[in-house]
């Protein structure tokens, strides 16, 4: 098993957001986590990546045999965890190439591998930028600075392609994208999908899942996974809306 989340509770600024999440992910699988706004989807993604604003109060996360919660954000990345940000940060003065070169070499160093030389690295960038139809001129520009929403999301998937993670978490990568950009992003993800990695797609809308077909769909509501199923669950949600889940939940409570 690649990832196992057990009874995860987390809070931010004293408010509990995650209230006991259980999730198992194997390599080769794509899991979709859906849910209404405020259900805790992005919190889950942030906790997995190691954002320090969140405090884990209970539970465990095991990743590839390691206790993920004991690893720093950079070590998680070096172990193969990748988060595609919902809101990618603009970093003026740091070029995309510089970021990726530093990242690739720090990861290789961690794994005891030789650094890539300039030629090999440029080849890698060239090859991967095609996956998301990213123009070469983006490489020399500052990270996300002045990028459109779609460009930012494509850049996230481009970084994912270059870093080649074992576990990728896509946090609302579809939100705000027009259909063309959505298709490009989804195509990129599909090409990266393999039997050796796993992808968690966090999304509010079913639309993305027409392009990235999940093996499992989980519905997160009020900090808990309240329903799990196959890809047809996403369609059902699309048809009935989240009220169905909310009502269902209250029925259970009654």
């Amino acid at each position, binding site marked *: 098993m690649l990832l196992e989340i057990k009874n995860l509770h987390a809070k931010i600024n004293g408010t509990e957001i995650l209230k006991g999440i259980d999730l198992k992910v194997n390599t080769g699988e794509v899991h979709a986590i859906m849910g209404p706004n405020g259900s805790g989807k992005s919190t889950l993604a942030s906790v997995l990546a190691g954002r320090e604003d969140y405090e884990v109060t209970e539970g465990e996360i095991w990743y590839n045999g390691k206790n993920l919660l004991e690893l720093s954000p950079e070590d998680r990345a070096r172990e193969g965890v990748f*988060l595609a940000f919902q809101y990618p940060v603009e970093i003026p003065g740091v070029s995309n190439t510089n970021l990726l070169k530093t990242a690739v070499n720090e990861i290789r160093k961690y794994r005891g591998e030789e650094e890539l030389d300039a030629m090999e690295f440029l080849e890698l960038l060239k090859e991967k930028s095609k996956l998301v139809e990213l123009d070469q001129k983006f490489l020399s520009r500052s990270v996300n600075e002045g990028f459109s929403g779609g460009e930012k999301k494509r850049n996230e998937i481009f970084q994912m392609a270059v870093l080649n993670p074992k576990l990728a978490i896509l946090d609302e990568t579809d939100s705000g994208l027009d259909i063309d950009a959505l298709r490009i992003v989804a195509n990129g993800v599909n090409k990266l999908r393999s039997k050796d990695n796993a992808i968690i797609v966090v999304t509010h809308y079913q639309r993305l899942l027409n392009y990235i077909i999940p093996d499992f769909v989980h519905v997160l509501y009020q900090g808990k996974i309240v329903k799990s199923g196959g890809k047809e669950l996403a369609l059902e949600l699309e048809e009935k809306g989240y009220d169905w889940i909310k009502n269902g939940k209250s029925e259970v409570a009654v």
Partner: protein
Amino acid sequence: MTETEFKRWFINNFQNFEKNLNGEKTSFFHQIRKDALSKFSLLNVPTTKDEEWKYTSISPLVKHNFNVLPPKVEIAPELVGKFLFDQLEHHLMVFVNGEFRKDLSKLDELPQTVEVTSLSNAIKNNHPALLNHFGKYAEDSNNLFTALNSAYTKDGAFIFIPKGKVVEDPIHIIFINRAQDESFVTQPRNLFIAEDNSQLTIIEHYASDDDGIYFSNSVTEIYLGENAFVDHIKLQEESKKAFHIARMEVDQERSSNFSSHLISTGAVFSRNEFTTRFNGEGGESMLNGLFMIDGEQFFDAHTMIDHAKPNCNSHEHYKGILEDKARGVFNGKVMVRPDAQKTNAFQENNTILLSDDAVMNSKPQLEIFADDVKCSHGATVGKLNEEAKFYLKSRGIGEEAATAMLIHAFASDVITTIKIEALRDYLEKIITQKFNQ
């Protein structure tokens, strides 16, 4: 010492200084020194009650008895090599404890008509340009430290570029200070004259190879004739226990272009007063700076850009990175006089505080007396962007490397305006060494 004693010290020691001038006492130039000394004796030692010294207390400075005669020390040529830049073709002037060292300098490849020599030599020869320009831009009357420098003027760099001459490679001027056991004061006096249509690049470099206590009180005057081009880089890497007070006064004639960068990392206390004045239309001026201080270092930049004539452009950008208990002051004044229509002035000061104990006082000032101008100014003081840092870390980049990357990025818009590649590389290296060891 008290402030009064500090002044008395320099007045009383003047005789000792005179004795060491080797009979120069009777020269015409010596009268300038004596006049300056009398002005010095009339001026008050600045305190934090003075508006221009509000955040800058010189009490740590006045505590010391600085020997007015710096010790003569031997410097091996290899040591000078430590302060040179890789891959940079340059002409070289070396001063050790204030004194010009011809043996360590390298000036043989300069164009014939260009004069690059020591100020003491220019004084000895009564160089006409010296008499025309000396003390004309950095006046003694309102500045205690300038008056002190003038009174004790003995040596420094003297550069005279005649009309239409171009010096392509930078002239690297290094002031190496080494205090050994006794603290001393060194007072370099520089005069750079670039006549009409000439071109010159200067690296004014203050450095030390140990952590001695000394006081470096320098004055630099720069004159740009019509359409002259001067690129000036000052690198302040004094000993971490040194006091550094420096004034630079720039006079720009019509259509001249002055570009300057102050890179400051050294000294426990440093104060920089830079003024550039447009005396003709169509001038361009750039005053950029980058200071990186830590421990208990104190840095102060007081700048003034005087738009006295129309159609001039100025660009000023100072950036600071403060760690530990470091304290910084930026006071930038842009004066747009009534005649100076169509002025374009940009001024910005940004500082990053890497610790809760670091303090920055920033005061941009615009004084505009013309109505058809474009001026902007701003100041920011903040911390490193934690969100950006997390983003980098989430890509596998470690804490130190991520910090260094963001510092590089922060400093980059000042570094990229430096025209000399070897210096840009040197600065990038300093940042990497400081933040990502």
